[in-house]
């Protein structure tokens, strides 16, 4: 039994068929990069794994059980933007992750419970390198620091799956390289299963242990919306060897 199983999943919005015939199985600890043309449905698949969208047909199961049909603490997410809380400091943003589940009524911890949550939050803030900014608000942070914060929040819940939707798309190249180091490190240390959507093929190959390329196989020129995209390439990369990115990119581009 695989960790996550995608069984004949189809997704449409009204008349528009977005995705079709997805049959994929994922083992625990894989790092899957999702690449493909803009608007082909990568985020849509991510949202279905997250539970904020439901498949029109087919089923996704996690450890043999159908996925819970709404977001929960098993699946963490980092969006390209807006995934931190603007009214909380860095520390509060991370602490709230545990306060949500420790205090059902107020969503706040006090006394020794608070101390405990604070300590845990500080260790995750340290892990993403945000300790110097611990009392700052998100609007005082750079884009890269905000993404680090979003990652720290997600890690607090020790999710089974971490979903990243173009997490580094808005960052400068130098900062992006730092973030690559960070996310790779977090992936290895936490035995996470990661799904990352990216529009940067090179980034996809660099980070992923497996790359999915999305594209439409069937086309009807009269009705461009009639068919959805599928995973046309499912490449398992040998993480010990650096893949020949140039060759692979070319291979994809040819199609």
């Amino acid at each position: 039994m695989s960790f996550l199983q995608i069984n004949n999943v189809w997704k449409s919005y009204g008349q528009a068929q977005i995705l079709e015939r997805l049959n994929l199985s994922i083992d625990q600890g894989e790092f899957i990069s999702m690449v493909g043309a803009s608007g082909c449905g990568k985020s849509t698949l991510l949202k279905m794994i997250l539970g904020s969208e439901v498949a029109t047909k087919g089923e996704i199961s996690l450890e043999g059980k159908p996925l819970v049909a709404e977001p929960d603490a098993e699946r963490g997410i980092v969006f390209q933007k807006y995934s931190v809380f603007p009214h909380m400091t860095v520390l509060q943003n991370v602490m709230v992750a545990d306060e949500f589940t420790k205090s059902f009524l107020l969503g706040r911890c006090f006394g020794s419970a608070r101390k405990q949550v604070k300590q845990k939050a500080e260790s995750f803030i340290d892990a993403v390198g945000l300790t110097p900014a611990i009392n700052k608000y998100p609007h005082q942070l750079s884009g890269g620091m905000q993404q680090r914060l979003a990652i720290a929040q997600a890690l607090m819940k020790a999710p089974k799956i971490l979903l990243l939707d173009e997490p580094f798309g808005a960052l400068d190249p130098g900062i992006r390289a730092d973030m690559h180091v960070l996310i790779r490190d977090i992936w290895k240390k936490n035995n996470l299963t990661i799904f990352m959507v990216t529009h940067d093929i090179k980034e996809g190959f660099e980070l992923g242990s497996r790359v999915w390329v999305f594209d439409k196989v069937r086309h009807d020129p009269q009705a461009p919306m009639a068919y959805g995209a599928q995973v046309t390439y499912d490449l398992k990369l040998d993480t010990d060897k650096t893949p020949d990115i140039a060759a692979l990119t070319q291979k994809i581009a040819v199609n």
Partner: protein
Amino acid sequence: MKRLMNIEPSRFWRTFLTIVPFIVIIALYWSASDARLAENPNDKLLPSFTQISSAIDRMAFTENKRTGEYLFWQDSAASLYRILLGITISAAIGLIIGLINGLLPGVRAGLSPLVTIASLVPPMAILPILFITFGLDELAKVMLIIIGTAPVIIRDMQSQVMQIPKEQLIKAQTLGASTWLVTIRVVLPQIMPKLLAAVRLSLGAAWLFLIAAEAIAAQEGLGYRIFLVRRYMAMDVILPYVAWITVLAFAMDFSLKKMSQVCFPWYHHQEASK
């Protein structure tokens, strides 16, 4: 020479330019009043500053012989009580319904159209209904303020809640938050500064409804007094009353602004750095 649109006045000039219009208006009034009174000493339209100050003294600092009360302060207390009560209840209703409507699609489907239609009913048109149902005392006046301002605040709060990026709400759920905790820890703190802003904007309407209600049926109140003394063309009372209402309105607006800055510094810094 810079373009006109790029010239920023210095601190000194800014203060100076703020004061000038007021001085000009007072000077204009003074000369116009002088001119009219020179022609006819019994003219009532533009009383002199001496007449106005003696009216203030009479209303605010002289005991009423019959009742032993100070009319001006009694009027102020009555009006402030009504408007503060009305606007507070409006804000509370606006916050709660707006929050629920904005966050819960199920409730929104049922309530949102109703609120939209309710906000289009002209409140003054149903004032007679309020007087009939709630009688002529306090309740009807407070109700008019609530009916006049609450629907707008509800609609504003609803749209503010819906403008919170969906990503944040989803993120909170992936951190294990229930609907309740998303409401009180994610949504509520973010729309509180917006609520204060909405209340500030509806203060003008609240004063309008208050004075209208007082003009029609009351025994005391700033609006009541103005409309009462109108019968004697007592401009020397009306003018300071209007100025006082303006001062009160300004003070309320200013304190709401300060309150927002003190309670939600993150919001104001964020807005300033945009």
